[in-house]
């Protein structure tokens, strides 16, 4: 079994990029792979707690928590988060915050990297 590092970047909540990243993580873990998920730019939106679940908006807290319980490793870019007013104090439990070098470090022993950039 291998290791997959996913980076999900500056993208709209409404773009479903984060939803895609979470579902792909789940599928990879189900097949026994280890998954690191790095969120940067607007992707750091996924990292804060108490996002009220409405059916009109993507709501990823629940699936993310379930996956973290099973070993998904989620880290948010600290500077990108702070610039948006997301602080340690309202970070979702289990989500780590580090500098951008964490993402590069994660790729070191990754078998595959999927960087979700785009617009």
């Amino acid at each position, binding site marked *: 079994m291998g290791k997959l590092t996913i980076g999900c970047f500056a993208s709209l909540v409404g773009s479903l*990029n984060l939803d*895609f990243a979470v579902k792909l993580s789940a599928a990879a873990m189900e097949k026994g792979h280890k998954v690191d998920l790095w969120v940067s730019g607007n992707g750091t939106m996924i990292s804060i707690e108490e996002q009220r679940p409405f059916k009109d908006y993507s709501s990823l807290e629940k699936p993310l928590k379930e996956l973290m319980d099973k070993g998904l490793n989620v880290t948010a870019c600290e500077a990108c988060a702070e610039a948006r007013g997301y602080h340690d104090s309202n970070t979702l439990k289990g989500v780590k915050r580090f500098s951008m070098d964490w993402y590069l470090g994660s790729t070191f022993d990754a078998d*595959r990297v*999927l960087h979700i950039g*785009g617009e």
Partner: protein
Amino acid sequence: MKLVAFVSDYRMTVDTLDRLKPEKLGIILVQNGVYHATVKDKGNPSPLLDYSADYYVLKDDLETRGYTASDVVNSKVKVISFGDIVDLMFNDYDKSAWI
């Protein structure tokens, strides 16, 4: 290199695919990229289907937009799941590109 490219837009904003010349190319249509598999523009299938590549389209993203496997206009496009994407990435390709 063996490269799998993810296409997530219908109206493309980059020409990158025109120039990538990997030894083996896979194209996975996701998000609004699925329209390349289901919609013709003025009767013409999408030029995105003209590359020398293996084509895949994500079932969840087809269904989200109101389509099923039977709406896929070209039989060379294979309908796949998230699990299939993982297997393709690990077994058939060594690098990936989200275009």
